């Protein structure tokens, strides 16, 4: 599947500008980006739910997205996709199987999606996670070549999320190409062969999770001081070489540096004795933030300056932080 210079403008808003990317068969690809980066627009174009602005093209399996969908080559779970009400899970999944040109037996699809036990339940009486599994079942109701998933694990608890990704890996192992958009960077890190980072409608990075981390370049430095630093010491800490970001919380300090050796050397030069010193490579999440920050800084006057203090990294969805 291939995007060639695909743009999409809504009124005066350019949601996607000149995206060119090609996915190879059998890849598992994660699409990362803060809210408003163009993820959903990208998936909509790929599935033929929207058409790109004149000049750009989107081709799927050598044909138009709509034709590929009609041929049953694509299965998709969208955030905005709803379910038919007033029917049972089994009936809805059977419908999905019968609509697919190469549909699987419904019982098999139910079992794969972990729905056998709730197959006789009414669709409108399901929890969020169960409904999401039904959507997954509809997307895998037949022998499609490409699976497209928009935030597939939203609303699932940790256990069902793991079950879900196990099922997903089986799909990929069976030779399917999988493209998923996610806020959970650890999912992209663990599952994807390839990560696409979108930012403000542009492709910011394209590579394996390891490559993306390397692109960000920076390393993380963390240590604890004997006492809470006073104003003078804080200025000195912020002035250490190579830093892109400093964050102070009481006596504990977290930094990000593009030259950790120089930073640590200068740190000792201040006459300090840092305890619990840690120097580590960035996780995908931090790498992602570094990349989007860098793009913000290059992009516009409203972009945040680098090196300012910001909240500690946590397991919150990326967009909440990436938009700070």
């Amino acid at each position, binding site marked *: 599947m291939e995007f060639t210079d695909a743009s999409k403008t809504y009124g005066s808003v350019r949601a996607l500008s000149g995206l060119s990317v090609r996915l190879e068969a059998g890849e598992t690809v994660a699409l990362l980006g803060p809210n408003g980066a163009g993820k959903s627009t990208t998936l909509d174009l790929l599935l033929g739910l929207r058409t790109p602005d004149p000049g750009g093209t989107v081709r799927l399996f050598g044909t138009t997205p709509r034709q590929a969908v009609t041929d049953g080559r694509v299965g998709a779970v969208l955030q905005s996709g*709803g379910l038919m*009400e007033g029917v049972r899970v089994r009936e*809805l999944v059977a419908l999905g199987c019968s609509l697919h040109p190469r549909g699987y037996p419904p019982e098999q699809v139910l079992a794969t999606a972990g729905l056998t036990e709730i197959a006789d339940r009414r669709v409108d009486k399901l929890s969020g996670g169960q409904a999401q599994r039904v959507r997954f079942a509809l997307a895998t109701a037949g022998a499609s070549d490409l699976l497209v998933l928009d935030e597939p694990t939203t609303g699932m608890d940790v256990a069902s999320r793991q079950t879900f990704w196990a099922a997903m890996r089986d799909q990929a192992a069976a030779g399917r190409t999988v493209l998923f958009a996610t806020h959970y960077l650890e999912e992209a890190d663990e599952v994807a062969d390839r990560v696409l980072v979108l930012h403000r409608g542009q492709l910011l990075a394209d590579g394996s999770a390891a490559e993306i981390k390397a692109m960000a370049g920076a390393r993380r430095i963390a240590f604890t001081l004997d006492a809470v630093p006073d104003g003078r010491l804080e200025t000195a800490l912020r002035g250490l070489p190579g830093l892109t970001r400093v964050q102070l919380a009481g006596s504990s300090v977290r930094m990000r540096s593009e030259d950790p050796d120089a930073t640590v050397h200068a740190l000792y030069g201040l006459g300090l004795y840092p305890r619990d010193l840690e120097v580590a490579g960035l996780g995908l999440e931090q790498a992602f933030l570094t990349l989007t920050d860098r793009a913000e800084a290059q992009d516009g006057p409203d972009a945040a300056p680098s090196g300012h203090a910001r909240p500690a990294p946590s397991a919150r969805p990326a967009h909440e932080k990436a938009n700070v």
Partner: protein
Amino acid sequence: MKHLVKLEILRALRNKKFMFFSVIYPPLLYLLIAGRNADAVLPGLDVSMSLYYMVAMAAFGAMTAVVLGNSERIAKERELGWVRQLRLTALPGRGYVGAKVASAATLSLPSIVLVLLTGAGVMGVRLDAWQWVALALCSWAGSFVFAALGVAIGYLATGDAVRPIAMLVYFALAFGGGLLMPSVVMPDWVQHIGDWLPTHAYTALGRAVERGQAPHAGDVGLLAGYLVLFAGAAAWLYRKDTRTT
């Protein structure tokens, strides 16, 4: 698509409120309006109350099932995103509209049959065998026009707006077409408009059969025109909807 039609029907049959209104309520209304003086002939009409209202209520019941039921369900399904999900299956665009029209028309059949049975069994209407069959067929075939209208309204309006709009269209068509009271009792200008409404042509089919005639070509033509108009509007609105949501 056959599976989708089957599921749509199954789902509507499970909806007891909907079944009550579309199936039980037209024969009840028929009994209430025409039950007391079945043989009376209304001024300006050449048929008895029982005959006039049998056709009118068969049409009214069919219209309830297909206009109100269809429009609300479609508007809701658009909101829920089910229509969007269906767009991601191999079902062609016209398949969804077709399935909606077909399943709605299937649901209009029981209310039509029940009104006719009430006419024969309770109201003492006597017609030839061919007339009964022709009446049922005309009432049923005509309901497709309104099923398409229901689909169009479902795509035109969203959320809270769909019920008032559907109700307005439904009652305007029912009154204007003389379904609830003969149009001869209404002012001239209403009658003039009424003559061009699909509901008027719809009941005119059945009334011609009751008089032992074949349905008039003019009425059939008018209904066919409306069917093309409504189905065209439904298809256009469907395409527009899937482009923008």
